[in-house]
């Protein structure tokens, strides 16, 4: 579904953020990307739907080359759902309108159909009653669930999560993770940048560990948590699992 091969990215000639990153996500797979901050994991996931440009290498999403200038990026992105660290709901639109905007303007769905679909998804994330409110009237956890519903409304073939719980108060993390776990169990293809190792243990098929712009470890979940091969991954794990 996602093929990342030999991707290099520089912010400036002397500062390389991604070094020869190669990995893939197959259909139905849940891949967790972790690593210390500044390791390039968010940058890598943003390269997948071309929110970040990269200088060399290739990324294919469902057979379409992301870095080809001829690729219709809006069309490609409409099929790739993305959830951001800071939710990025549109503050001037009601919750339901947040869910309908792209359905109507990008997919060309009728208003009634979009509303029906939006309400179904809001019900699914347990927020049907909030449809007429504005984003700022919701808690962080609720906003992030709306953001997930908004991405799902586009019927994506794959979902990208960029640290979806990092900006949340601790007591709100689980309500968001629960939605993500359900999604994973239903067979959604997912690439998730997160520090939530509990989530990785529960639903991930593979774990990728990144450090200083490189993919250091790329292993099935059991191997990664059982006996990580690299020192850096071991150190990282001991740090975040010791509490």
């Amino acid at each position, binding site marked *: 579904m996602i093929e990342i091969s030999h991707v290099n990215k520089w912010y400036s000639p002397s500062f390389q953020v991604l070094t020869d990153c190669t990995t893939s996500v197959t259909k139905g797979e849940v891949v967790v990307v972790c690593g210390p901050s500044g390791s390039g994991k968010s940058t890598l996931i943003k390269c997948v739907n071309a929110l970040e440009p990269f200088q060399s290498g290739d990324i294919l999403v469902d057979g379409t080359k992301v870095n080809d200038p001829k690729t219709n990026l*809006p069309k490609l*992105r409409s099929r790739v759902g993305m959830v951001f660290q800071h939710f*990025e709901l549109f503050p001037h639109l009601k919750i339901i309108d947040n869910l309908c905007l792209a359905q109507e303007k990008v997919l060309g769905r009728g208003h009634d159909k979009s509303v029906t679909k939006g309400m179904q998804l809001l019900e699914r994330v347990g927020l049907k009653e909030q449809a007429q409110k504005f984003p700022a009237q919701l808690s962080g956890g609720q906003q992030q669930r709306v953001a997930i519903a908004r991405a799902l409304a586009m019927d994506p073939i794959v979902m990208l999560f960029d640290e979806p719980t990092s900006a949340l108060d601790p007591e709100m993390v689980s309500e968001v993770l629960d939605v993500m776990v359900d999604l994973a169990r239903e067979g959604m293809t997912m690439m998730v940048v997160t520090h939530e190792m509990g989530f990785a243990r529960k639903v991930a098929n593979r774990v990728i560990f990144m450090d200083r712009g490189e993919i250091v470890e790329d292993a099935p979940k059991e191997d990664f948590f059982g006996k990580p091969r690299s020192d850096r991954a071991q150190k990282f794990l001991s740090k975040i699992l010791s509490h």
Partner: protein
Amino acid sequence: MLGNFDFDVIRRALPYLFYEGMTFTLTLTGLAALGGLIFGTALALMRLSGLKLLGRIAGIYVDFMRSLPLVLVIFWFYFLVPYIGQWLTGASRPISVGAFASSLITFIMFEAAYFSEIMRAGIQSISRGQPAAASALGLTYAQTMRYVVLPQAFRNMLPVLITQTIVLFQDTSLVYVLSITDFLGAASKVAQRDGRLVEMYLFAAVVYFTISCIASFGVRRLQARIAIIR
């Protein structure tokens, strides 16, 4: 001085002052604000587009307009536009555009420079995550601007935009240099004719002051009503 203050002069001039003068002033203000906003938003988008050449052109235009006194631009334009029209259409004589059209074009072009800077600040006040989220949903650049960025920028900037329009309302009085009968022009004509300078200029000041004050008050009310809940 105020002993022989003649209110009757003002009363008799009222229909002329308002039907002719104020109608012109308000029409010019409204159309110039609308045109300036549209053109100004286009300039702001050019400057933020990331296309170097487009940004440079808009930047030079804005700096140029903001470096000239408005009266000078009004004057210049009035005498220049007929010749530009002649040159563009290849006519044999300078094309007369009329004082209203000329002053309207001038104000739109001049105000666009100021509105564009306001809109630029408004657009830049939107966090980068917003356009990113919009494009991640598949919206094109134009759709992202239209449905996500500009509505928020407008709401954030509306108080400043209206305040600038109040300034514009006052600035329209400068069209007197073209002998146009705007509100101040009308008051001035009556004042000269009847030899009642004190009454007419004082009354004109009171009217400008009152309208501007009410508008400013309205801005504050509006600000509270349309603010995006954050």
